[in-house]
């Protein structure tokens, strides 16, 4: 009898905790739906409402230059051009921010992706767009993984484009794409011998709008690696970066099994 009571009491506890868990789960699901909706509103506000004042800024500065540019010279004209370039930059930043938000929510398709072929294509395109630069390229053949083809293309594009950009001032530039096994995990890496970055700054690289170089040296708003990280996170994977100032950088990613 005593034993049976204990069993009953335990069972009630189990039922009770299952009820609790369900309630918590429901609450979390409701909260998630709420946050998703807020995110939708925010994205819409950024893409629509924030653009309007920017257009005003851009439009009227352009008109000033167009209509009254002949009467302006020296500092006033220089100021106006700075306003214009600020507005143009903000437009690019908004575009990039939207890309990040889209990548975070886009539907994913999992298929076998030939990374070596993708990397070779992307590098061919860069070479074609910038034929004057002799860059030594090495792509390890036969590398593939499961993932979303178009998202992984963005990953390779952004990593290789960075390598291309940051070897701009290097005497004999070299870009390599290869696989690397670390603690049983297979990483795919892009290595270059370009400008590199200051040791200890690797974490900052993957945050939106973080730049570790001067805009005048290497142009860009600083969203490429944040996009890479977001895409790899969606593939249940990890990213890592190693580099040294003036001695090149290596960026690696691994994707999860599922």
């Amino acid at each position, binding site marked *: 009898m005593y034993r049976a009571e204990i069993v009953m009491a335990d069972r009630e506890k189990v039922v009770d905790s299952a009820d609790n868990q369900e309630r918590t789960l429901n609450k979390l699901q409701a909260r998630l739906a709420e946050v998703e909706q807020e995110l939708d509103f925010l994205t*819409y506000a950024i*893409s*629509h*409402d924030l*653009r*309007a*004042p*920017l*257009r*005003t800024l*851009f*439009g*009227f500065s*352009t*008109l000033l230059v167009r209509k009254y540019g002949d009467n302006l010279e020296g500092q006033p004209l220089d100021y106006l051009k700075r306003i214009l370039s600020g*507005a*143009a930059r903000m*437009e690019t930043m908004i575009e990039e921010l939207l890309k990040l938000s889209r990548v975070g929510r886009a539907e994913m398709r999992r298929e076998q992706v030939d990374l070596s072929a993708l990397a070779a294509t992307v590098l061919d395109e860069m070479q074609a767009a910038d034929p004057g630069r002799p860059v030594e390229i090495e792509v390890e053949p036969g590398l593939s993984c499961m993932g979303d083809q178009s998202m992984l293309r963005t990953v390779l594009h952004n990593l290789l484009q960075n390598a291309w950009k940051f070897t701009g001032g290097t005497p004999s530039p070299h870009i390599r794409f290869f696989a690397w096994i670390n603690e049983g995990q297979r990483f795919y890496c892009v290595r270059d011998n370009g400008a590199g970055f200051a040791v200890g700054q690797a974490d900052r690289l993957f945050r939106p709008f973080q730049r570790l170089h001067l805009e005048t040296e290497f142009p860009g708003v600083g969203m490429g690696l944040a996009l890479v990280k977001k895409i790899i996170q969606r593939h249940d994977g990890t990213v890592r970066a190693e580099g040294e100032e003036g001695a090149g950088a290596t960026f690696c990613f691994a994707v999860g099994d599922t």
Partner: protein
Amino acid sequence: MKKTPGRMDILLVEDNPGDVELVREALSNGGVKNVLHVASDGVQAMRFLRKEGEYAGRILPDLVLLDLNLPRKSGREVLKDLKSDPALQFIPVIVLTSSKSEEDIIQAYCLHANCYVSKPVDFNQFVNIVHSIEDFWLSIVKLPFRH
């Protein structure tokens, strides 16, 4: 319905005075002689189109340029009302908005917008777009009551 020959009437439904001025600027050096009428919200736009109150005796526009996010009555509602009104539904409506959202685009076409154009931030592109609209809608296409 009396239309002035050689002059196109455009109704711009836009609440942002900056954008109104920019459209006016862009239209002013285009090739087609036009008069720009402006309604700054959806209610005013419908009153203009239905010639109510202060708009009695006005002529119908040849073309409507419609923003989507408007005070009092949204551009979507204006579009819906206009396209379901037999007295107005033949007027071409060009949705001209900052939004590039897929949902807005689909919705606008479902509500029978004649085309959807996203306003660029760059003024030079903006001028090109307004000129393209002018060129296509006011000189290439055949509009009703304009023969």
